[in-house]
Structure formats: C-alpha cells, structure tokens
C-alpha cells in the first residue's frame, strides 16, 4: 500500500541521484588524473607550439590550441555579451510590446536549442559564398552566434527580476528611459555577469563550431584570416589517435578544459549568490 510505495520510491530516488552524480565524479577524476599525469610528466606540452609532423607523433605541444581557444572565445564572448545585454534590455516592457517580445523570445529559445553545428555550417556557407578559407574570424563569428542566445536568456531573467518599483521610482523622478535602464542594469549586473560566464564556458568547450569555420590546423594562430584550432577540437581529433603522445595531448587538453569550467562554475555561483542577495533585499 501507500507506505510501501513511499519506501520503495525513496530508495529508487536515491539510486537515481547516484546515477546522476557518479558520472560527474568519474569524469572529473578521469580528466584530472589522466590529464594531470600527462602534464606532470611532460609539462612542456602546454607551452610548446606544435612541431612538424605534429599529428603523426611528432614533436611539440598544443600551445596553438590554447592560444587559439583564447583568441576565439574572448572576442566572441565580448561581442556576444554586448549584443545579448542590449537585446535583453530591449525586451523589457518599457521598450517593446508583448507581441514583439514574445516573438523574439521564441526565436531566442529556438536558437538556444539549436545544435552548435548548425551555427558552424551557417558561417561555413558564408565562407563558401565569399570564397574564403577557414579562418579565426569565422570561428569568432560562429561562437558569437552560439553564445548570444545563452547570455540573453540569463540576462533576460536577471533583468526581469528587478522589482518594478525601481523603475517606477526612476520614472517618477523624471529620468529618461535610457537613464532608468542604466539603473536597472546596475541592479541586475551580477545576474548578467553570471550569464556571460555561462556563455563563456559553453563557448570554450565547443568543437563543432570551430571545426567548420576555423579549420583545425596544426600551426600557431596567425592573424584573423588564418586558420587556427581550439582545445576541444584537439580532444576530438586526437583522442583516438594511433600515437600515444598525440593521445596524451587530448587528455591534457581535457584537464585544462575541465579546470577552466570548474573555475568558471565557482565564479558564476558567487555572482549568482551576490545577485540573489540583492533581490531578496538584504
């Protein structure tokens, strides 16, 4: 009867939670141990650029991927954040009516749910049309497209939870929409930053966009119009390699990625905590 049902389901629930958390622990352990051990044994891999015959077990580290990741993600996140925050500010009721904001929100939801590979293919098509080869700039464009819906969603939430009294007070003091919006922005800034960090984390781990747009070269990143690669691409390409030294790079890259993600996660938490303190009125 119902008491038995309750007991059974409690056990099943705990088991389910275990199934959820165990992989997390395992993945982090695996990346840290395997990747960490590679880095301990051969720490030069992260500061060396790849040599000739790199993918064939040749010399060199994957500094090109580390730099590539940075050159891709940082500009992409900056552009995406500016755009995303602007759009989410626009979605407030002071600026646009319900119908319009609903349409934009639905489209953003669709874009949020699109697999990243589609953004890669989209930019690729533009490259084909303009007879360009894969380059850094294309990668930045694709990552920007990927990050915009993500950052907008979190920024939107943050801005919507600003109590309407703040806005009403500002207007009744005679402030313009722009000035009021600046205040709203300040109020929701921690939530917005949390969103930016989440977008950043997503962007740095994405391989599909980069492969299609930046090429996956084995050379150091040159200029905006040259090919480059990124850490997740390294993992994808080199995980299954025949050569152990090449495989090791994949593990080390995984370690670095996980480390970055964990740091971002902790920082995001701190910002979200700061944000919620603000709202519950401390």
């Amino acid at each position, binding site marked *: 009867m119902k008491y038995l049902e309750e007991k059974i389901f409690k056990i099943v629930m705990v088991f389910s939670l275990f199934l959820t958390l165990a992989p997390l622990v395992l993945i982090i352990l695996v990346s840290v141990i395997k990747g960490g051990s590679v880095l301990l044994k051969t720490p030069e891999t992260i500061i060396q650029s790849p040599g000739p015959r790199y993918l064939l077990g040749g010399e060199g580290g994957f500094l090109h991927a580390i730099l590539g990741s940075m050159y891709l993600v940082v500009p992409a996140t900056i552009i995406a954040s500016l755009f995303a925050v602007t759009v989410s500010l626009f979605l407030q009721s002071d600026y646009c009516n319900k119908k319009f904001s609903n349409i934009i929100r639905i489209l953003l939801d669709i874009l949020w749910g699109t697999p990243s*590979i589609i953004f890669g293919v989209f930019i690729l098509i533009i490259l*084909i049309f303009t007879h360009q080869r894969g380059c850094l700039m294309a990668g930045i464009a694709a990552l920007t497209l990927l990050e915009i819906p993500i950052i907008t969603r979190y920024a939107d939430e943050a801005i919507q939870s600003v109590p309407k009294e703040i806005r009403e007070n500002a207007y009744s003091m005679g402030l313009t929409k722009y000035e009021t919006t600046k205040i709203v922005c300040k109020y929701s800034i921690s939530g917005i930053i949390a969103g930016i960090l989440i977008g950043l984390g997503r962007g740095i781990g994405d391989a599909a966009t980069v492969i299609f747009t930046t090429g996956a070269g084995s050379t150091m990143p040159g200029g905006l119009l040259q090919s480059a690669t990124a850490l997740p691409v390294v993992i994808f390409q080199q995980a299954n390699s025949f050569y152990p030294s090449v495989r090791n790079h994949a593990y080390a890259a995984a370690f670095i990625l996980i480390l970055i*993600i964990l740091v971002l996660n902790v920082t995001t938490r701190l910002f979200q905590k700061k944000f919620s303190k603000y709202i519950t009125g401390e």
Partner: protein
Amino acid sequence: MPNRLKIRIFKDLVSTKVMFLCAAVVILLFILIMIMLIAKSSFVISEKSIWELLFSSKWDPENYIFGFFPAVVGTLAVTVFSMVIAIPVSLLSAVLIAEYTPQRWEKILSSFIDVLAGIPSVVFGLCALLYLAPFISTITEKLLNIETTGMNILTASITLSIMVFPIIISLTIESLQAVPVELREVSLSLGATKWQTVKKTLFRAAGPGIISAVLLGFGRAFGETMAVAMIIGNKNQIPGSIFSAGQTLPSLIVSSFGEMMSIPIQQSALIFVALTLFIIVTVTNTIAKIINTKLANKWRY
C-alpha cells in the same frame, strides 16, 4: 529646451533605436540561417528527391548517391534510448533534491548538477571512449556473449543520457519549487504520503515546466554532435541492434566534413542534413511552447 535636457533626450532616442536594431537582428539572424541552409541545400534537392535523401539507405558519395536513412534511424534510436534512461532518472533525482532533502543540501546538490551541465561534450566523448566503451564491450561479451567494440548505439545512448540529466533535473527542480507550498500542505493534510503528493499533485501542478524540461533535454539529445561522433562508430548502416555501430545526423555531418566538402553536390547534401536538423529543432521548440501554454491552462490551480 535647456541644452542638458536636449542631450538626455537625444541619448534616449539613439539608445532606443540601437536596441530595436539589435532585436531586429535576432529575427533577421534566424531568417538568414534558414535561408542560407535552404539555398545551399537546393542543389541536392533539385537533383534528388527529399524522399530518396531521407529514406534510402544507399550510401555512395562518390557516385552522388546519398541515402541518409541509416543516420535518421541512428538518430531516432540514440535519442529514444537516451531519453528512456534520462527521463525517469532525472525526474526522480529532481524530486529527491527538491522535495526530500533539506534546504542546504538542495543548494549543494544543485551546484553539482550545474557542473555536470557545463562539461563540454568532447570531454564526455573522451571519457566514454576511454572507459565506457571498453566497459560495455567487456560486459556484453561476458554476460550476453556478443562481440562488440563498445563503439555503438548503446554507449552513445548512455553517454547522451548522462549529458541530458542536468538539463531535465535543474528545470524540474525549478518547476517544483515554483509550486506554492499550500498545495503540498493541502495534499498532506488530507492524509496523502509525501510520494503520493508528488505523484498526484506536484507533477500536475509543475507539469508544464517539467514537460518543457523534458523536451529541452530531448532537443539536446537529438542535436548532440561531438560526443556521439566520438563513440558511435561512424558506420553508415542501419543498426541491427543496440550493440551495432551506427550514425546520427549530426555525427554524420561532422565525420563526413573533410571528405565531402570539396564537391558542390556533396557539400549540398551535408548542408541538407543540417537544414533537416534545424527544421526539426524549430518545430519541436514551437510545439513545446504550445503544449506548455495549453497544459498550464488545463492544470491551473
């Protein structure tokens, strides 16, 4: 009008226009993506029928024969199996965290779930490759006497389900927490047990949110590219069982990328696959929104 006021109003006007432009760009972006995908797919669509592309299994790119059906089957198989695992596990975990654990535990557990959500798909692929695949391979050989490399539909499904857990869990927890505590009190004071309250009342009250969570998870499982590409075996065949290697639509795009991008019609074929994906995602998302609104209305409290 005093100068200062003029400047303020000017800033106001300009900023409003800029914001409007950005918002319009969002709409344009969506339309542009759709158009470009259609434009580039039109080549292959004009040469071969859509039916042939999606439902034939003959795969001979060099002779311009593209049958994506194996990839379609693979996508369905992997998505369905991963959801079959993910839905019960996620919902039960979410209920445990939201309803059965004390407040401070809920925050800690949610943070762990968030970390899982942030792990890049290539890292999932790597770990699945290194450990899950050999593990599955050994188990199936020992228990079922089936030979498999471990790079198959089953491994891909399990990996996908793990990737989907955090999405469903965090959104379900949110939906459950949004239900006012009075509803729980009413159910409990009528003499229901906690689980009965969850089963009968909370799932219904939080229903629209939970269904959205599941659909979102479904979307992720459906579109996941890298991890699947790393462990599904990349064989363009209709999988005979969950222990066979196969292909999904996204993994097909990635793995055929190098070879197939040189010749226009092959390019076009791959882009057609991307278009199919995009359309399915758009349709699923829109249907999800409609279901959400309808259910929220039907199950109102």
